[in-house]
């Protein structure tokens, strides 16, 4: 599904923040991406969801060499990836329901065709009563769940989550992890970037550890 070969990344003329990354993410797999702050987790996630291009090396995503794709092709590829941001990035002027259904709206689907799907997912993540609420009035946990629902509504093949439990209490973190595990069981490959050791200890999964720009894989 995802293949990195000798990938390097630098910003401008600065030093390489990621060096010689070579690893694969297989279909239906679950992995934590971890490492100390500043190790390059967010940069690696940005490479994975195609918001950055590597300065060297080869990235293959869903059997496409991303270096050869134009912007529109990258956009189409990005529809197969769900992303959960640490800061949620919900649109404040749209209700929870509209935020979650946004990926389907962008795909050009009619609202009648997805209303039931979105409502069902919102109930599943515990936001059934908050569908019409705007993000500014949601709690941190509710925002996080709305962001996760938005990331998975279009049934992505790959889910990337950047510190998804960074703003929530341990109980909610446990619930969110269960949510990711359920998604993985339903066929989605999951990559969770976190430095929360407690969270990783709760589930036996592959670990990708970034240290000084290099990656170490622990299967």
């Amino acid at each position, binding site marked *: 599904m995802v293949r990195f070969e000798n990938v390097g990344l630098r910003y401008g003329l600065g030093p390489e923040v990621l060096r010689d990354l070579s690893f694969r993410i297989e279909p239906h797999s679950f992995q934590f991406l971890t490492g100390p702050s500043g190790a390059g987790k967010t940069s690696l996630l940005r490479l994975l969801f195609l918001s950055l291009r590597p300065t060297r090396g080869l990235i293959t995503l869903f059997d496409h060499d991303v270096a050869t794709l134009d*912007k*529109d092709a990258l956009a189409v*590829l*990005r*529809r197969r990836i769900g992303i959960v941001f640490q800061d949620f990035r919900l649109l404040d002027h749209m209700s929870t329901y509209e935020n979650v259904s946004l*990926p389907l*709206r*962008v*795909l050009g689907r009619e*609202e009648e065709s997805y209303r039931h799907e979105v409502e069902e997912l919102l109930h599943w993540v515990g936001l059934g009563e908050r569908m019409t609420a705007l993000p500014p009035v949601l709690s941190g946990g509710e925002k996080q769940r709305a962001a996760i629902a938005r990331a998975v509504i279009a049934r992505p093949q790959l889910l990337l989550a950047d510190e998804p439990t960074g703003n929530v209490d341990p109980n909610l973190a446990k619930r969110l992890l269960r949510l990711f595990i359920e998604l993985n069981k339903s066929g989605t490959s999951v990559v969770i970037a976190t430095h929360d050791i407690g969270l990783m200890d709760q589930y036996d999964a592959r670990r990708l550890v970034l240290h000084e720009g290099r990656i170490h894989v622990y299967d």
Partner: protein
Amino acid sequence: MSTTDRVRTDRSRTDSRLSGALRGLTGLVRRKPRETPIVPRSSIAGSALIAVVAIMTFLASLTTGAVVLVVGAAAEWQSDVSREVTVQVRPMAGRDLDVDVVRAVEIVRAAPGVASVRAQDKAESARLLEPWLGSGLSLESLPVPRLIVVQVTPGRPPDFAALKTRLAVEVPGATLDDHRGFSRRLRAMADTAVAVGLAILGLVMAATVLSVAFATRGAMATNRPTVEVLHFIGAKDAYVAGQFMRHFLFLGLQGGSIGGGAAVVLFLLLGLAGGRLFGLGGADAAALFGGAALGIGGYLVLLVQVALVGLVTALTSRRVVKATLKAVG
């Protein structure tokens, strides 16, 4: 790549851009009213832009209306002038002027394409000269030429060259004036007015496009987080551009309607007031300007212009968004 291939590629790119823009425009119509706009209306400096577009459309409409009036008046003048020609018979030593006038009338009347011929008598000639020479003038003592007014059959004018030659041979003192010089000057004046009008329209449109471009860039900066989210969930640049275009089309139509509407009201008032403005009597103004009323055609042109302003506003914003997204990469 051969030239033919290159032309074909360029054409297919242009077609694809055009169809993208059209898809965007039809998408605007298809959107359900209950959907919240992805780009919030409040994030765009709407009132200021509406005011700018309204002012620009008002100026453009005044220019267009003035051009329509001038072109209409010039066409009317030309039509009047070309319906009538004049034969002037000058007195010559050793010739009887009255006989020459009668002969000239006969020659002109015999020419095909002449509807009517009327020679002005001495009294009429005296009246024409009255403003310069005073009343009670005896023309017998002055070598005053006589005029023959010839009405031409519309659409079938006589052969003026042949008529001139025949008059020159048979009546040496007669000359035919078909008013072509005057007509040419009228046409040149109307063409100049149209060119100046088009230049002003071009400047006004350029100013509108620049204002919309600045407003779009501002809106994009304000909505940067929204644009990022759209990209992350797989929206193509054309989709993002469509979200902005939607707003700018309505802003353009709003501003255009206000400015165009104000211009229409002004032209209606002018039409009602006739030529009494500017200190002219109604008849004088009508003679000069062919009437200040625009007519149905003129008002339709103004309506089309309002729609055009909306379209230009929408397409400008779409182009600016796409160019900005491309530059950001």
